[in-house]
């Protein structure tokens, strides 16, 4: 009975994901008939070269980005919740997004101070990716090195939060001294965007995601042991320091690279593991890891479809939509359950 139930929940998202993918590919500011979308995807050619261009160079990279970002952030959230034994932990709990915003804030808001050609070069899309990547990377380097020294995960959590508010404060100071135009550019970055990635960016993001996922899969057994608490885990031959390091590293790679390319995306990482837990009835990471990844992808694709405002040329900020759609769902789930358990 139990086995059957588990497999049903693994199989379901495998069926849903392709459907949502096709949906996401057929929605956009330009209307393309559903039949033509399928034809273009299958390589059967089309009457309209613009359509083909939109699908191949705009919507397909965007869909893949959504899958990687949604799944990757959800996995990072799961890893952090397991490591910190805390239902409030998420991919950004260690200050990754704050680090990224600091990097971008320095480039965007501080570029007038740097000035000249150099400042111009940094404000390009790739400049932003590098800046936010470096920003989250330096915060993470601090947290990872702390994780090698500190055995207690709660201390690590607080250090992460402190790094986060430190970089948040620096962003505040930078914003205070910036022009309205620069400020607007920064705010636009913080809205998050899934759509602006080129194929080469998608390739780089995929490499980072696969790397992070490999580390996560390699930690399945230790994470399951951690479900019993740190003392039991240690008594069963699991090294706490090594596991902490591996989980922080995987989260850094996943959430760091995703934030660098898409900007901050709230909610997905925190909420998807909770949503999945409500349905799977198991905490086993062999089941949780694939299910959380797939549902993360599905939910981000759905949010993106809503953000597109179907058949309309407006696009809403994805970072707002994820919370706008997601928070009520989680509140409703918990309302029914009455309690949140980890």
């Amino acid at each position, binding site marked *: 009975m139990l086995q059957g139930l588990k497999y049903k929940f693994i199989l379901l998202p495998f069926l849903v994901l392709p459907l949502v993918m096709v949906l996401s590919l057929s929605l956009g500011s330009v209307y393309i008939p559903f039949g033509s979308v399928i034809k273009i995807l299958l390589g059967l050619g089309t009457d309209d070269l613009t359509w083909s261009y939109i699908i191949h160079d705009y919507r397909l990279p965007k869909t893949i980005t959504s899958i990687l970002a949604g799944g990757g952030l959800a996995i990072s959230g799961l890893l952090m919740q397991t490591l910190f034994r805390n239902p409030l932990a998420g991919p950004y709990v260690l200050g990754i997004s704050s680090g990224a915003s600091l990097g971008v804030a320095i480039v965007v808001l501080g570029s007038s101070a740097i000035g000249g050609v150099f400042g111009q070069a940094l404000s390009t899309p790739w400049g932003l990716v590098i800046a936010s990547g470096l920003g989250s990377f330096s915060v993470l380097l601090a947290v990872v090195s702390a994780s090698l020294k500190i055995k207690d995960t709660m201390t690590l959590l607080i250090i992460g939060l402190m790094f986060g508010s430190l970089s948040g404060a620096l962003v505040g100071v930078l914003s205070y001294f910036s022009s309205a135009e620069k400020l607007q550019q920064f705010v636009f970055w913080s809205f998050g965007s899934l759509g602006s990635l080129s194929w080469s960016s998608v390739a780089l993001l995929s490499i980072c995601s696969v790397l992070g996922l490999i580390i996560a899969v390699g930690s399945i*057994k230790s994470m399951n*042991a951690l479900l019993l608490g740190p003392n039991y885990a240690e008594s069963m031959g699991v090294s706490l320091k090594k596991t902490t390091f591996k989980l922080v590293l995987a989260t850094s790679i996943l959430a760091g690279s995703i934030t660098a390319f898409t900007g901050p995306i709230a909610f997905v990482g925190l909420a998807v593991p909770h949503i999945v837990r409500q349905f799977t009835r198991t905490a086993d990471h*062999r089941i949780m890891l694939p299910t959380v990844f797939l549902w993360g992808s599905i939910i981000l694709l759905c949010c993106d479809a809503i953000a597109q405002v179907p058949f309309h040329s407006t696009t809403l900020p994805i970072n707002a939509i994820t919370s706008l759609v997601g928070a009520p769902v989680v509140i409703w789930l918990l309302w029914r359950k009455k309690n949140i358990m980890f």
Partner: protein
Amino acid sequence: MVDVQNLKIGYRGKSGPIFLSEIHDFNLQPGSLTALVGPNGIGKSTLLQTLSGSIDPLAGTLTMRGLVLSQMTPHQRSRQLSLVLTKSQHSQQLMVEEFVSLGRLPYANWVGALQQEDKSMILKALEATDLISLRYKKCGDISDGEMQRVAIARALAQDTPIILLDEPTTHLDLHHKALVLKLLKDLATKHQKVVLYATHDIELALDIVDKILLMTTKSGQLLTPNQLIEEKHLDHLFPKEHVYFDPKTKRFSMKD
């Protein structure tokens, strides 16, 4: 099976090691149930942590089945001794059966897949602790007494010759205390294991255990319950102003 010589326990603080207690020598035999008894703050938990290898002794040697504890890898240790803890910070989301199954992790492959042998071991552990009817319940939904049994079942599933328990009878009512102690006695005698448990329930321990490891200020010694009573060790266990031990009834009583 567990041999201890000139053991000094304590922990390493910022300003050097902090000495807690000293035990000259003792050994625990298979098939014996031993209670670890002593007042609060005397180092019972530290001794258990030292025996489990999670902290190093300040001095002395510890051998388990002929192997020196400090030279064993964490993986080797996980096959020699298992723990039962009161404060384990486990996930409330785990099902009882999952909690017990995780005791088999030291024997599982890299993702933790279980073989037929593991599954029958888990079933046996659930049966021995009378948990079959609770197996699909979440750990967050069961009582403290039931959770204590789940923790013992997990240690059983880990199938180690040595089991160390940290106050397994706290938070339980008298009926469940007796139940847990009888279970421990069974484990020791039927499965020929070394079972050592820390406890404040000295009176109950006197009724059931084979040996008592008594820890008093600065030292510890292994005694039989009768020795403990006849040599009047219990008279000195606590300060005299509030409680006294009556050797006839084998019970502590309050002074007026």
